[in-house]
């Protein structure tokens, strides 16, 4: 399989602190790839560099055959790489449908067509009945789904999910897992997720990268990763095995 996204020795320093240290990995087209690691491991920094919110200090990020490292976030999104935010950021005073319509307008000029696409996605994300509510009135799980819907509306090849399961109850997590798996299966959407919720990682990911103190300490299939002694020691804890 060809890699849709590949990182080669990507680094980011904040003054003295090396947040991401020479990290390399490749996400094959059509895969669901998870990045896990303890708090402060550099996951979100890595994510922000891929999404264009920060420029890397070193290394290259190649998406669909072209370097994207250092491109601004909007340009990255227009290339087909859409993100969600760890702390959700809906457009609060707009309706749920308008939120998603804005995403759909990226590659459509007609508002009616964008609205139609938004409604399809809202059905998929179980938000159709709430489409006329203001985004600010939604519960956290609904806002998380709204973020996913808005990101999907931009028509990405790769969806970047930053802790989209955090704060969800187990049943809600399972529902989100099912939605993402369907999206991946139906449309071949590639997904890169940063996740703490191992339940979701194990259920979704075909491949897992483990970060610790900015360094990639392991990469492999999920069931191999959870048995990796270094991973157990640094992150999962003995009881997780």
């Amino acid at each position, binding site marked *: 399989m060809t890699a849709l996204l590949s990182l080669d020795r990507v680094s980011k320093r904040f003054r003295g602190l090396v947040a991401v240290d020479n990290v390399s990995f490749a996400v094959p087209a059509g895969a669901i790839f998870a990045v896990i690691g303890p708090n402060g491991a550099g996951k979100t920094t890595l994510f922000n560099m891929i999404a264009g*919110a920060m420029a890397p200090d070193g290394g290259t990020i190649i998406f669909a055959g072209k370097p994207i490292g250092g491109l601004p976030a909007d340009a990255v999104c227009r290339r087909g790489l859409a993100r969600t935010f760890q702390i959700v950021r809906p457009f609060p*005073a707009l309706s749920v449908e308008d939120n998603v319509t*804005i995403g759909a307008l990226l590659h459509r000029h007609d508002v009616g067509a*964008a609205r139609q696409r938004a409604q399809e996605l809202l059905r998929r994300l179980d938000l159709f009945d709430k489409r006329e509510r203001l985004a600010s009135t939604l519960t956290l799980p609904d806002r998380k789904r709204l973020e996913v819907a808005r990101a999907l509306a931009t028509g990405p090849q790769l969806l970047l999910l930053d802790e989209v399961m955090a704060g969800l109850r187990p049943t809600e997590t399972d529902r989100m897992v099912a939605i993402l798996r369907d999206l991946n299966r139906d449309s071949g959407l590639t997904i890169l997720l940063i996740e703490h919720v191992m339940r979701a990682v194990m259920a979704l990911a075909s491949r897992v990268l483990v970060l610790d103190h900015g360094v990639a300490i392991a990469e492999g299939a999920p069931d191999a990763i959870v048995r990796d002694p270094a991973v157990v020691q640094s992150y999962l804890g003995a009881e997780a095995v």
Partner: protein
Amino acid sequence: MTSSFSTGFSRRGAALLAVLLAALVAAPWMVNDYLLTVLVLILYFAYTGQAWNVMMGFAGQLSLGHALYVGLSSYVAAMMFTRLGVGPWLGLLAAIPLAAACGAIIGYLAFRFRVAGVYFAILTIAFAEFARIGFDNWGFVNASSGLFLPVKQYAHNDLWQLRGSPTMFYYVILAATVLVFVLCHFLIHRRIGYFWLAIREDEEAARAAGIDTFRYKMYAVMVSAAVTSFAGVFYAFFYNNLFPEQVFSISRSIEIILGPIIGGIGTLFGPILGAFVLTGLAETLNAVMSAFGVELPGARQVFYGVCLLLVVVALPDGVWPPLARRLGVAERKR
């Protein structure tokens, strides 16, 4: 309802709009000259408020220096008229690109160097003040002595030269207010309008959704400045005198924004309603005071302050949104 949002107004809203428009069209037959002048002032503020609202209400960029665009445009048209004998509509053709270019310069400086929020607002004040001081000392435009347009009794209304009766001016500003309303309604329901709202709501999230926020903020400033431009030309030909201390003054900029704030920022009716409420009440206050022989300089400003205070405390979204809900013609919140 979604349908009314995407296609226009609800039937009730459209009916209300038609009644309002009919009343405004018929007004010159029903009011005296003084009231007509008040109506001109109200529509002037409805127009400029609507123009300002494109920047603040739609795209979330606070300008406190809209007097700059009014002043520049009024000077351009007045200079062309008095020195070259060129009529106001041709003057407008020169003023619009100039105002838009000024907006573009301010926008470019601010957005390129990430000057945002209150700092952006201060920058807009700075440019307006810069123009005020500059024009006040610029001999070519008569500096602080001001510019005067020739005033004489006109036997008939000359629309091409904008010379004539208050009734003519009234219809001109009414037509402009209707046009800018239609323009704003058009823009806010198009792709550009949605992108503006996204930027207003959360700029970083807008960028993450692929929106080139720099570009769309530039559009907002330029459209707002260009639309404001007409108000400047109108101002020059209606009042026939221009002083830098007056047209570029920060209190002019503040007057422009009070209407939409009181009426409802980001709504299409807010600037119109706000202008009626504010100017209407202030003129009533004037009339009552003069009827009682009271003269209180600054009473108008105090009155504006009180209005603003009441609205901010009691109706933070402005007067229009709750009123619209009561009338059953609510625009979708945006």
